[in-house]
């Protein structure tokens, strides 16, 4: 009778196979998540990205009202796809401020004329500085910022219709 040691290598192999098989069944998360949740927004002041809305600074976020901070750009196609959802959030009473990444005023104006303007303010982030400072890795992304300027939640990618109630709930949570 061979001892258990004889089967040890096979057992280890089966273990690795099991781990690999288990990992294959797990959903893959390709997103780079911000590790700034629960931390304060940095000091910043951005010029207006479009002529008909003011720019954005830290003081605007610390006015006591929780807000959605939408990181977008006129050259970003999913940003156009999420426009109806931003409009729905706005209609439900969510204050939304925008940060336009690497964008020209005329392109921003054309985008807003075509897809609507749910933003109270839009700051221009020409060197992706605010984006890097809050750990955002692309467009579009939507952050929930509470009334003290603390980052409470990050949604990566375009907002789907099914995300709207969830974001409203996150906004309510940030107000408590």
């Amino acid at each position, binding site marked *: 009778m061979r001892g258990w040691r004889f089967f040890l290598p096979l057992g280890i192999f089966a273990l690795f196979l099991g781990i690999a098989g288990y990992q294959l069944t797990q959903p893959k998360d*390709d997103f*780079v*998540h*911000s*590790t*700034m949740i629960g931390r304060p927004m940095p000091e910043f002041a951005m010029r207006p990205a479009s002529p008909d809305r003011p720019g954005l600074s830290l003081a605007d976020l610390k006015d006591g009202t929780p807000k959605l901070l939408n990181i977008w*750009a006129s*050259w*970003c*196609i999913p940003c156009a796809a999420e426009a109806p959802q931003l409009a729905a959030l706005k209609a439900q009473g969510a204050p939304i401020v925008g940060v336009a*990444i*690497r*964008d*020209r005023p005329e*392109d921003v104006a054309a985008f807003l004329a075509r897809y609507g303007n749910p933003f109270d303010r839009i700051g221009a982030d*020409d*060197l*992706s*500085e605010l*984006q*890097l*400072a*809050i*750990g955002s*890795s*692309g467009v579009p992304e939507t952050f929930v910022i509470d009334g003290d300027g603390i980052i409470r939640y990050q949604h990566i990618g375009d907002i789907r219709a099914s995300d709207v109630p969830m974001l409203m709930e996150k906004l309510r949570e940030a107000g408590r």
Partner: protein
Amino acid sequence: MRALAGLLLVLAALPLAAQDAMPPAPYAYRQLEDPALEARAQGLMETLRCLKCQSQSIADSDAPMAGDMRHQVRTRIAAGEDPEAIREWMMERYGDYVSYAPVVSRTTWPLFAGPLVLLGIAALLIWRRFRRSA
């Protein structure tokens, strides 16, 4: 044929539409005037991971965001910041993902400890076998 040509046009058009019209950041493609500072910046840029492209460093990537990251690295190095402090700043925001230099952390320590453990076991086995035959 026409449909194929149309499809090709659409495929060719998408990457263009996904690019912004802004010029690259001032220090995205421009080296620092001081070669010593540029060398420090280059060393750091080669070990920071592009957030848009997964398997490229920001030194290798032409993504506009990587250009903005290079601009930030170069201006901060020029302002006298230590490269490792800039790496820490990035990792504070993006976690381990952003660093291409392997870091020992709560999740990565088995990668470093594993080979040492295996080497130890191998050494033990060899030692026992030699002792027996001697």
